[in-house]
């Protein structure tokens, strides 16, 4: 019993969350170019919540803007407007952080957990360029921070179980704030075995285990000034990637920052914040648990980033300015060691990322201009300067095999501009925007060395001579909203010139055993991507709500060949019932057959599918404590299916029954 008490106190000391009473505004529009996904459990029966202990990936997947590429049951890769990692900007509270895996097995979203976050801001296209250059959009993961103006103390516990994969989740949090300082601390642990696809087919190597600790603390240093420090430690081990030939024995990140925030409502400089940050990511791919591999290999990678930003908000007459000056220095190194079957033979070693040092500095400016009572104009611009240096001679010499005259250093300027016009009249809202954006090639695209892509079965070689990818985008959206009915229609079109993609080179022999050959990153003249989305919401009564959405995308290169990983026609439908403390939901989601697939990039036709989900929750008070129980069934009919976004058609999870229990002590 004493032991229990001690562990209870220890967990209190190490943990926490935010259950503050901030109300979530019910939005009147259902199409927004900028979407905010609420993760925080402030309002425990928020209908938008998937399940309190869902992974961050599951939260993101609910967004109309975001799709998730899956290589297994862990660390899904987010895509905005059908564009993945290299074309989007993903930041944590404005901090740049880069994955250390050469095979995109560790998107940034895998190094935080729902316990750390309050919201995720998803911005489409050039609207997402506040924190960095982007083509497809930006995702900013907002850390949970208590409000200094309220006195608050609470402790939360969450626990969850899922039948499929025998997944267990436990988390705990403490939130404390008064007028002087605040502390939010939390810990979460997740463990899952192999999941089963529909028909009870066990997907081998789909297990994972992870834990995450985080603390954010702030102290008021003056009437307007606050110093805030944050630290997140995230470590996942024994992660299986059933769609790939390798697993991950360790994915570890340390993410820290210290910032000074200044708020003065009476001044035209209403807000400014300066933050210094550092993060270090270690990612170790290995295949020691796989049987029947032709050759065993280790592929560790490291990515360290140092950076700062300074943000100002200035209000002047009809103008609302936001400025953001930021800089970061990133160091990316990855190795590959292969162990010959003959133990007498020397190991085979190569640098797959040649210790690339990227120094970026840029400024962003935004103005939200209120033109009149009906219309608003928003203009954004970012100019960045980027310098890349290969600091490892071994790595430089390796790349010189392909590019004998290449330099170890190069610089580029990146420009992003957009303007958005909004017009509101009666129950209608019109949004239109145009944008121009540029991005530099990623480390893999510029400097990768024999990186095997299991999707199309080719080894990839980077190309240091790639020029910036440039995108021109057009967006238009119309919303209608009345008390009962909401309808939204949206289209976005991207014309991307110098579109970076791998091109087969018949003169180069493959390295990886079993690969079909080598592709070198090249720039297509252009590619186009069109995304359209229709959403509707109807309130039958105060108790019953229906929503539905339909999306269609198409992506083509200059020769009208399909681009890979573009979503086919997809749809969702949901029915929500809410009465007092009880909440129930029935949903279905599906997609049509993927006909516009890219054979060149390893895709084949993916069949249509339709799955059904249901969940219900009940929340009640126990004295001042609050308890929420949420339970549901996902993929009710145990359908065997995979989607266009599943790496190598890896089937998705079959029937899964989950229970989450949250307990908040106030």
């Amino acid at each position: 019993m004493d032991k229990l008490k001690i562990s209870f106190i220890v967990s209190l000391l190490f943990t926490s969350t935010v259950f503050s009473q901030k109300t979530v505004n019910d939005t009147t529009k259902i199409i927004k170019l900028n979407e905010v996904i609420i993760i925080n459990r402030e309002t425990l029966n928020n209908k938008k919540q998937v399940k309190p202990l869902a992974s961050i990936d599951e939260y993101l997947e609910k967004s109309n803007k975001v799709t998730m590429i899956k290589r297994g049951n862990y660390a899904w890769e987010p895509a905005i407007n059908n564009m993945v990692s290299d074309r989007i900007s993903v930041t944590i509270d404005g901090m740049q952080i880069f994955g250390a895996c050469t095979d995109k097995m560790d998107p940034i979203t895998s190094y935080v957990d729902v316990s750390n976050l309050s919201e995720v801001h998803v911005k489409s296209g050039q609207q997402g360029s506040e924190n960095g250059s982007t083509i497809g959009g930006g995702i900013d993961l907002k850390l949970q921070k208590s409000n200094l103006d309220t006195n608050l103390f609470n402790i939360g516990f969450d626990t969850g179980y899922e039948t499929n994969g025998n997944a267990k989740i436990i988390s705990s949090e403490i939130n404390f704030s008064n007028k002087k300082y605040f502390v939010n601390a939390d810990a979460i642990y997740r463990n899952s075995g192999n999941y089963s696809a529909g028909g009870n087919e066990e997907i081998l190597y789909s297990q994972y285990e992870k834990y995450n600790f985080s603390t954010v603390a702030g102290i008021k240093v003056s009437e307007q000034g606050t110093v805030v420090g944050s630290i997140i430690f995230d470590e996942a081990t024994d992660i299986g990637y059933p769609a790939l030939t390798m697993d991950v024995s360790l994915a570890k990140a340390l993410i820290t920052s210290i910032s000074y925030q200044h708020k003065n409502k009476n001044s035209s400089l209403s807000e400014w914040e300066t933050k210094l940050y550092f993060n270090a990511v270690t990612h170790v791919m290995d295949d020691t648990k796989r049987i029947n591999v032709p050759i065993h290999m280790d592929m560790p990678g490291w990515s360290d980033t140092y950076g700062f930003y300074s943000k100002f908000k200035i209000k002047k007459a009809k103008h609302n300015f936001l400025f953001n000056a930021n800089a970061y220095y990133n160091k990316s190194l990855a190795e590959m060691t292969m162990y010959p079957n003959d133990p007498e033979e020397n190991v085979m070693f190569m640098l797959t990322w040649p210790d690339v040092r990227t120094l970026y500095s840029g400024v962003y400016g935004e103005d939200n201009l209120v033109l009149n009572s009906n219309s608003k104009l928003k203009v954004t611009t970012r100019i960045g300067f980027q310098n890349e240096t290969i600091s490892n001679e071994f790595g430089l010499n390796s790349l010189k095999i392909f590019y004998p005259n290449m330099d170890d250093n190069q610089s580029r300027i990146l420009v992003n501009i957009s303007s958005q016009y909004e017009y509101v009249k009666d129950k209608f809202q019109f949004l239109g925007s145009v944008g121009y954006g540029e991005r530099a090639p990623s480390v893999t695209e510029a400097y990768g060395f024999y990186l095997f892509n299991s999707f199309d079965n080719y080894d990839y070689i980077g190309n240091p001579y790639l020029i910036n990818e440039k995108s021109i985008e057009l967006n238009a959206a119309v919303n209608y909203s009345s008390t009962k009915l909401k309808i939204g229609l949206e289209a976005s079109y991207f014309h991307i010139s110098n579109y970076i993609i791998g091109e087969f080179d018949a003169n180069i022999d493959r390295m990886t055993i079993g690969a079909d050959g080598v592709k070198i990153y090249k720039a297509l003249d252009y590619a186009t991507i069109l995304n359209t989305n229709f959403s509707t919401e109807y309130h039958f009564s105060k108790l019953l709500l229906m929503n539905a959405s339909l999306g269609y995308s198409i992506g083509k290169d200059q020769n009208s060949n399909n681009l890979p990983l573009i979503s086919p026609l997809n749809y969702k439908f949901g029915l929500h019932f809410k009465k007092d403390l009880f909440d129930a939901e029935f949903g279905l989601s599906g997609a049509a057959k993927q006909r516009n697939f890219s054979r060149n990039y390893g895709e084949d036709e993916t069949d249509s599918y339709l799955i059904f989900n249901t969940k219900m929750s009940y929340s009640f008070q126990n004295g001042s404590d609050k308890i929420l129980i949420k339970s549901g069934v996902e993929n009710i009919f145990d359908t065997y299916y995979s989607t266009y976004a599943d790496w190598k058609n890896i089937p998705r999870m079959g029937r899964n029954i989950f229970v989450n229990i949250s307990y908040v002590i106030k």
Partner: protein
Amino acid sequence: MKLIKYFLPVVIAIVLISCSNNDDDIVTVNEIEDLLKVQEISNENHTIEVFTKSGSLVQGFNNITIRIKDIQTLEFVENASITWKPMMHMMAMMHTCPKSALVKVAGKETVYNGFIIFQMPENETEGWDLTFNYTINGVDYEVVDNISVPQAPKRTVTTFTGTDDVKYILALIDPQSPEVKINDMVVGLYKMENMMSFPAVENYKISLDPRMPSMGNHSSPNNENLVYNAISKLYAGKLSLTMTGYWKLNLMLMNQNDEILKGEAVTEENEASSLFLELEF
């Protein structure tokens, strides 16, 4: 003016000497810098010191530096003309091997350099000796001793008979320290005229296809076939190595008429050429 003419060299000499406390040592240390002594071979007048980078000899190509020490004066001889003759003493016969001339190293006073390609290693009953014949101030001397030539861990030299019924010796000269990059590759090709004569073969061509048998026999890009260099009398090309480990350098030898004398192309069916060299790093 005349004074300057006579004084200037003296001044320079003084400056140079005063920069070091012992100029004799400087000569000894500098001229064999980075080399290790393999052995000393002596007669009653002189000791010949034999150096290589590794401090030993090995089957295949050996870059050898020597100097001659006068046993009386303990000084190194600077004006010798010298030849060498490695000899393999086998059970039934004797033979020598391909070698370069032994010439004084340009810019140095006491050291002489050349290479020997031992096409076979010693064994329990058969071994090599090395003879030096040299002339100093018109007097001829000879010195001989056994040398140790162990087997190379990888195939760096190969002896074969071409389709033209000529016996050839092919040896890897460079890279001696291979790296992951495009390496300069040099090989020596010699014809075995008889047991005592191994002249360099001129103007043939050698195609190069490096492979990694342990990694599904993959190749590497941007290699360059080996072509004859009339000045060095060796064959030079480019060898690209994309990773460390064991590489098999598959070769094909072609004469001036582009007729293949030895070796086969590597294909899906044919894993390796019968003419190959190896390296591991």
